[in-house]
């Protein structure tokens, strides 16, 4: 429907104000990232000029070269990527199974299980730092990807399960029945018919899980202190040396860290929004 009502016009009389509001919105979201991009292109000397410069005078990519050589940034990227990817895969596998059971099978106490899942999603994982640290220590998992993959999986599990339950419930039961009449087993029907149909949901849940893992800081900081096993957020935060805090290099590293997720967001923005609002929650 059109929004061009007389009342609308009287309040936001046409374009100029709307353009201004759009600009404010876009700046609010983009300015920090933009500023860091500018900073990363400045030389250390330009950075200490006063008054400060906004756009870089003589853009240089030297900081990017240093970001990759001073610290094993590629390794951080790789660690982050693998941890996020593996935990996402595990989350999806586990939550697809659980969500299917909750959405389709007649289970006593289904509502109880669902409330329990919602309760878990509000769980402050920070408080489990000590016992998790001890468990990882006991299992000899400190300074391994697994030490992060397992908690990250649990971090995203509730959200993904809730999203998937609602997607599964939207798929007509008869499709599955007909698959079983056509000769599929129950699990076969799940993976051959239901999961492909719920692909958008699986996808959305996957992106949320990925971003959750990609962003996590505290556990990565605490469990993987080996510099070779650091994830990107921890690696970049600890860029500052014993003595120095190299801003332009950190900025370059930040840009490198922002790009992958930004690309993901740009490509899948609508999915992410729908996922966030269909029960996906993250602060």
């Amino acid at each position, binding site marked *: 429907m059109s929004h061009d009502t007389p009342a609308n016009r009287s309040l936001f009389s046409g374009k100029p104000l709307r353009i201004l509001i759009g600009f404010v919105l876009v700046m609010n979201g983009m300015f920090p990232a933009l500023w860091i991009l500018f900073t990363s292109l400045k030389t250390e000397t330009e950075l200490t000029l006063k008054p400060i410069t906004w756009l870089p005078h003589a853009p240089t990519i030297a900081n990017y070269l240093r970001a990759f050589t001073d610290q094993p940034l590629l390794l951080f990227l790789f660690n982050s990527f693998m941890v996020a990817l593996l935990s996402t895969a595990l989350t999806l596998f586990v939550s697809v199974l659980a969500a299917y059971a909750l959405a389709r099978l007649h289970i006593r106490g289904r509502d109880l299980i669902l409330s329990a899942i919602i309760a878990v999603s509000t769980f402050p994982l920070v408080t489990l730092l000590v016992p998790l640290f001890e468990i990882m220590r006991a299992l000899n998992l*400190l300074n391994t990807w697994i030490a992060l993959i397992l908690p990250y999986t649990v971090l995203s599990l509730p959200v993904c399960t809730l999203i998937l339950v609602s997607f599964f419930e939207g798929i007509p039961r008869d499709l599955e029945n007909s698959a079983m009449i056509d000769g599929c087993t129950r699990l076969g029907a799940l993976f051959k018919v239901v999961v492909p149909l719920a692909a958008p949901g699986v996808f959305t849940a996957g992106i949320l899980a990925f971003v959750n893992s990609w962003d996590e800081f505290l556990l990565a900081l605490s469990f*993987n*202190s*080996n*510099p070779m096993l650091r994830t990107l957020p921890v690696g970049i935060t*600890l860029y*500052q040396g014993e*003595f120095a805090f190299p801003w332009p290099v950190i900025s370059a590293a930040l840009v490198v860290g922002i790009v992958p997720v930004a690309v993901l967001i740009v490509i899948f923005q609508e999915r992410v929004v729908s996922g966030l609002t269909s029960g996906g929650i993250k602060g």
Partner: protein
Amino acid sequence: MMSKKTMKLLLAGAALTLTASAAMAQTNLRVFVSSQHRPDVWRKAFDMYEAKNPNVKVTIETGGNTSEAQAQYLNTVMTAKDSSLDVMILDVIRPAQYAAAGWTVPFNDVLGADADSYMKRYLPAYAEANTVDGKVVALPAFADAMFLYYRKDLLEKHGIQPPQTWDELAVAAKKVTESEKDPNLQGLSFQGKAIEGAVCTFLLPYWSMGRQLVSNGKLSFDKEAAVKSLKLWKDFVDQGVAKKNIAEVATDDTRKEFQAGNVLFAVNWSYAWGQFQGAESAVKDKVGVVKLPAVQGGQPASCLGGWEWGVSAYSNNKTEAQKFVQYLSSPETSEFMAINAALLPQFPDVYTDADVTKAVPWFANARPVVETAKARPVTPRYNEVSDIIRTTVNAVLAGQSTPEDGATQMEGRLRRVLR
């Protein structure tokens, strides 16, 4: 993983045959070196050892940019009882902690009855820092201490002698900054940020008053001296001798500002010297270095730095590792590192070695300073002690609490930790 497995196989093989000669068994030693202390030069020293001991292969591991980050990493390795590290370099504040936690093996078995005389060769402070309850828990890798750097040119211009006391320093700073009229020139730069350096900041005047923080493992906190110490630094800020945001200043900020020619006096570790005399320095050949001032009527005191070699209690090659550490902590290696990496020697004699004095002439000035340096409190809960001191110093310098309140808080918190 693979190497660990093969190693185990080799060990098992050796145990089974029993007849295998030592030369046949290859030992892999994994050594953790702090990345800020020239791992490239250490590698050369390792190479020389490998050349002499063909059955030993040394791999190097570095990481973490700060003492804290490195300790965090080693903490997890040690709490995980991980056997992958054999030898690790430790900040001088840590050998006692590690020994208490049972994370390092003492050297007494290797040193035998000679342990005492063996340790006597080192500067006394290092012999002390590495001996806990009569056990040698680590061997010194190199020495360090805090120095007072000053602008030789400016002091000469105004006819001022390097200060002996903090009061003299304040007077000199005011005089020079007022007559220079350079708005960028600060009188004094020191570490006010909540980093390990701030612990030394607090202890310097406190020690100078002849006080100790911990004696025989018990807190011996002198509140009056603590208030004086905190007030001393806060007064520098209030009088304009140090800059307003000193609570944001970390070690290398002091170095950079001095190097840019914006600081008259600077408190810093030995590494700064090399940088001040480097090509990029604005103050090359205009720098003097002396021991730190004392409080009025007190003794000058410096903060003992330096790093130590420890052998992991979870290592599978403890004996080989200890032998290797003895090599690393020998006068020869010390001399090599002094010449090639400008690391201060842990042996008094090396300072006067002809090759060393030729390569790093200023070491001659450094030795008396290192000799007056005091070790920070020795306690298994040092991390907590350090955190209490540095956050208090930081809070006082930021004007967050008064020196009196700061000292009271510090005492309360220290009592809890050292209960």
